[in-house]
């Protein structure tokens, strides 16, 4: 039996801490060592990994969401659909055709399944897309929520189904899967963490960073996942001492610190990931060195072996 690839989820609670920076550069380092790498962008409201990789989105598949369509000729106006609809998304008045209230429809299809007259037809709307692309020899799956839609969980479900599909495809045999999440500690983030074997919350030494780290750690602990923290912009002054004291009090394990470094900003602007192969004459800065160290620590932590 083929080994399943190890799955790492990069998350962090607070927005803008460098989750995508870490996820993309980890993927780059694994790829540079010749490992087959799958990167998953689960930040469906702001999917930006492709920008950091310096690529384009391209081919996509729609994520569809069920909505009931009532065939008025077949409908016997019995009201069984409305009586059994848990969120009350079907409005039924005696002797009239039910009216779907789509804003509250959960898409469960119960009405479609139980209609005795087979008068409810499945109709679908697009709530987002999943992109399946390759940039810099890294396979990238991206979930994108259609702006204005609220069903991000549906997009994440479709994205994870695609991940399973790719991992289980015998021809593809991945060595490592890296998942990037949205900020926050909500259900989309939970689903992505749940999928992983190891979790890396990325935070920064600020009050916000600490507060949101505590929240995300609660979520990770609820899911019983092994995790270690990365402190990005670790040399940022102001709250640093209190921050590191708190981390110590909370007994959180630190995977590594990434110091402030212009090279990170320059790599953003150039659209070339920091850890992409350097030319011989290029200088190696403190953030680059920090990433190399983190990469080695991760391989040791997750007992990484080539599949």
């Amino acid at each position, binding site marked *: 039996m083929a080994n399943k690839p190890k799955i790492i989820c990069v998350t962090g609670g607070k927005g803008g801490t460098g989750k995508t920076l870490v996820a993309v550069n980890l993927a780059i380092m694994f790829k540079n060592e010749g490992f087959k790498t799958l990167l998953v962008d689960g930040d469906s409201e702001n999917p930006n990994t492709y920008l950091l990789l310096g690529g384009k989105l391209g081919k996509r598949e729609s994520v569809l969401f069920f909505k009931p369509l009532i065939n008025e000729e077949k409908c016997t106006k019995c009201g069984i659909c*409305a009586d059994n609809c848990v*969120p*009350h*998304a079907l*409005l*039924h*008045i*005696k002797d009239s055709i039910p*009216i779907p*209230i789509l*804003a*509250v429809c959960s898409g469960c299809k119960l009405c479609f399944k139980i209609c005795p007259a087979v008068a409810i037809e499945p109709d679908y709307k697009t709530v987002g897309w999943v992109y399946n692309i390759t940039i810099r020899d890294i396979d990238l799956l991206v979930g994108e929520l259609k702006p204005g839609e609220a069903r991000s969980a549906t997009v994440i479900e479709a994205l994870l189904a695609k991940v399973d599909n790719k991992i289980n495809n015998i021809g593809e045999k991945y060595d490592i899967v890296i998942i990037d999440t949205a900020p926050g500690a909500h259900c989309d983030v939970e689903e992505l963490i749940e999928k992983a074997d190891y979790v890396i919350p990325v935070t920064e030494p600020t009050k916000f960073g600490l507060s949101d780290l505590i929240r995300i750690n609660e979520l990770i602990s609820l899911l019983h996942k092994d995790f270690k923290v990365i402190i990005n912009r670790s040399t940022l002054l102001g709250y640093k001492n209190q921050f590191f004291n708190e981390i110590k009090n909370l007994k959180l394990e630190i995977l590594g610190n990434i110091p402030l470094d212009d090279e990170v900003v320059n790599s953003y602007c150039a659209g070339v990931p920091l850890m992409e192969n350097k030319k011989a004459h290029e200088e190696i800065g403190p953030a680059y060195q920090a990433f190399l160290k983190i990469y080695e620590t991760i391989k040791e932590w997750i007992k990484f072996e080539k599949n």
Partner: protein
Amino acid sequence: MVIIAVPSDGNGGLNELINSRFGRCPSFTFVKVEDKKIKEVKVVSNSAVGQMGGAGIHAAQLIGDNGAGIVIIGFLGPNAAQSLNALKIQIYQAPNKSITVREVINLYLENELPSINNANVAAHRGMGGA
């Protein structure tokens, strides 16, 4: 002839106060009006009051089932508004004060109430909280 539904306090009826919540009022008082006169009064307790969600939709269904063509409301959420519009039930806005069902029906009969089409509060207003 038209039947007017009014969300009401307690056991409902003409002398009861109107309840500002639509989906989660304790009762609906249905008032049948003909030639600008009250002909008949009926009270139905609101089965949607304790529901987890969708109370506005359920309440719209309840007043539709009881043949109402008009509803007079205090606060109205988006799902309830959409449901009432779908059922083509006309919506009138009650004044923002303590007022009985009889008084508000009289205001309607004197053409003193503005008609509205859309929600005037966000979803879940009737569930309480700040």
